[in-house]
């Protein structure tokens, strides 16, 4: 699968977000490279502590102090040309505020936290549309109804007067999506939007997001820990571990040709529906626990739990993300073409 040469909507290079705490420096995001393309969904997958949410927050510059984007670039390209490096913007400045909500929208795991409990759904949506567009109130209400209708809320005109607590979790998430898409953003960041929902509702929301993406051609960055969800919705996948992208590629590459030992282990450790009787009784678990962010291992971040780790190599140098195959990147010494060549020239030649 080859991607076109068109400029990505968002191109992140060497992004670092650090937290200076009294106990020490926490490198929540430590050198992340990724691209989000128009009309495509990039899933960022990782366990807790992988820095995936912090990375998403960095894109909108909404990292809470003492956290700060300390390095790297985030080139955001608008449709009509013109690009801006978000990393260089002042987190409280005017430019970034114009981007937030209008150009890049974000939805969160718990919609209740991002909706005001004392205003009706209609008021909040209309206000948001008026904030970013110079149109009359009437037109804004029409657009709100249209937006609610688009996300599959039955009887949208009546729902305008509803308060968030009167809606179910799934409905609230739909309202959040309607709100996020009201200004037709070029990109949507979804941070675990379905984690708090039931499976049947989750399936509906995922389907909705796909349909809306087909309609609008927006780019989506989807943060999740659930590989099942990734398989459903992703075009491209970035696997994160301890603040770094360890593997990146198309969804097919990641699921059918995984390269990095962490990706392999992660895929092996999930119980697969309908697969019990052929694969046997035990799950292949990853040994040990995710290291504490203050206690990062030296060398490759995964070397302490990696079944393939080579002493003297993996615990010394931090592997760089290299293109292993076209558009398939991995950060592993043992998969590095140069390393394979130097160790086993015959095999590499085959």
């Amino acid at each position: 699968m080859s991607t076109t040469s068109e400029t990505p909507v968002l191109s992140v290079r060497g992004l670092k977000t650090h937290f200076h705490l009294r106990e020490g420096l926490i490198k929540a995001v430590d050198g992340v490279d990724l691209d989000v393309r128009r009309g495509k969904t990039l899933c960022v997958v990782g366990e807790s502590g992988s820095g995936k949410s912090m990375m998403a927050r960095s894109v909108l510059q909404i990292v809470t102090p003492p956290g700060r984007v300390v390095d790297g670039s985030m080139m955001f390209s608008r449709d009509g040309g013109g690009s801006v490096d978000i990393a260089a913007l002042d987190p409280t400045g005017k430019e970034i505020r114009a981007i937030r909500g209008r150009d890049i929208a974000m939805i969160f795991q718990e919609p209740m936290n991002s909706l005001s409990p004392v205003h009706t759904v209609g008021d909040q949506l209309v206000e948001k549309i008026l904030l970013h567009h110079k149109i009359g109130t009437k037109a804004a209400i029409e657009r709100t109804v249209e937006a609610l209708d688009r996300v599959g809320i039955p009887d949208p005109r009546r729902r305008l007067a509803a308060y968030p607590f009167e809606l179910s979790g799934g409905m609230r998430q739909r309202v959040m999506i309607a709100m996020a898409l009201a200004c037709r953003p070029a990109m949507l960041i979804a941070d675990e939007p379905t984690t708090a929902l039931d499976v049947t509702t989750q399936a509906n929301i995922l389907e909705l997001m796909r349909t809306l993406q087909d309609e609008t051609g927006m780019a989506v960055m989807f943060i999740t820990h659930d590989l099942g969800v990734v398989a459903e919705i992703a075009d491209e996948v970035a696997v994160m571990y301890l603040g770094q992208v360890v593997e990146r590629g198309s969804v097919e590459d990641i699921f059918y040709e995984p390269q990095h030992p962490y990706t392999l282990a992660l895929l092996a450790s999930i119980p697969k529906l309908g697969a019990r009787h052929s694969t046997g009784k035990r799950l292949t678990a990853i040994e040990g626990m995710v290291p504490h962010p203050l206690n990062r291992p030296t060398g490759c971040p995964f070397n302490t739990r990696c079944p393939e780790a080579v002493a003297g190599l993996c615990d010394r140098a931090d592997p760089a993300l290299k293109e292993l195959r076209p558009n398939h990147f991995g950060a592993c010494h043992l998969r590095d073409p140069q390393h394979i060549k130097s160790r086993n020239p015959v095999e590499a030649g085959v």
Partner: protein
Amino acid sequence: MIHTGHTRNELSAGEPLIRAENVKVHFPVTSGFLRRTVRHIKAVDGVTLAIRAGETLSLVGESGCGKTTFGQALVRVLEPTDGRILYRKDGETVDLSHLTPIEMRPYRADIRMIFQDPFASLNPRRRVIDIIAEPLRNFGVTDQAEVESRVADLMRRVGLRPEYMARYPYAFSGGERQRIGIARALSVRPKIVVADECVSALDVSIQAQTLNLLQDLQEEFDLTYLFISHDLGVVEYISDRVAVMYAGRVVELATTDQLFSRPRHPYTAALLASVPRPDPRLARSQKRMRLKGEVADPANRPVGCAFHPRCPFATDLCRTEDPAAKDVNGTQVACHHAENLDLKGVTENAA
């Protein structure tokens, strides 16, 4: 596979160790100064379920279906509004449903619980040894040396270093805390363990470790599990039998194989179709069954079959008459049309 003396397909094997008969848990909704009851939330509305010695019975369903409430009634955190909970001990059968806390105490050692939240379920002010040993001390082990050796043994078995027993829980990660919770549940050699969403708060890799551990311990301690979960992938992996709950009732009960390969209730089929599969080609190849609408409100149960407003196969019969559970090819199912529906289960991944 778990080897506890019987195979998965033998429905008749294993004696019921504990049996819930028509258990109901209704919560009154009060209002006004005098706290008058205005209506009831029927969280559990007539569940009959027999758990056999040595098996793992899973209870699945979406949030609000009453699975957690039923688990709490079974371990008697809650008192059931109606129905009986028959527990067999030393050849005698006791009804646990209305025992007072003092009468209940002797059975607390037999029926244990593992909680969902590994953070909230451990008192942060107590050392690991005190947490694990609390049931031990309550049930008569008072000698400090013996307590220590037994706690050390338990910690080793759940994969924790016994040297850490003097530490407080805040120093442990979620997965390690859940192991502490498991050790606490097992410290008094229980017969039945109710595990309420005990892996859903954990990361995937930690989840796998914990599930493997639960299976090893089942074999080692000869345990019977009631495994409450919303995650069908985990349920299929760990269970012998599965009960699907909807709006406070069991709508389908079958062996794991049967339920996953040939669901009989439309709700089960919809649940199975909704689970995201970690297989992109499979996920995109088929058009799957989707449910409209919301989960039934337990305070306002629909007339007839509670599932009919969302069911694609609903008929007038479903809208008027509440279906009773019946046997269809070895599956207990509460659906008027169970025999006539050809519902899709999940098949093995193509890859």
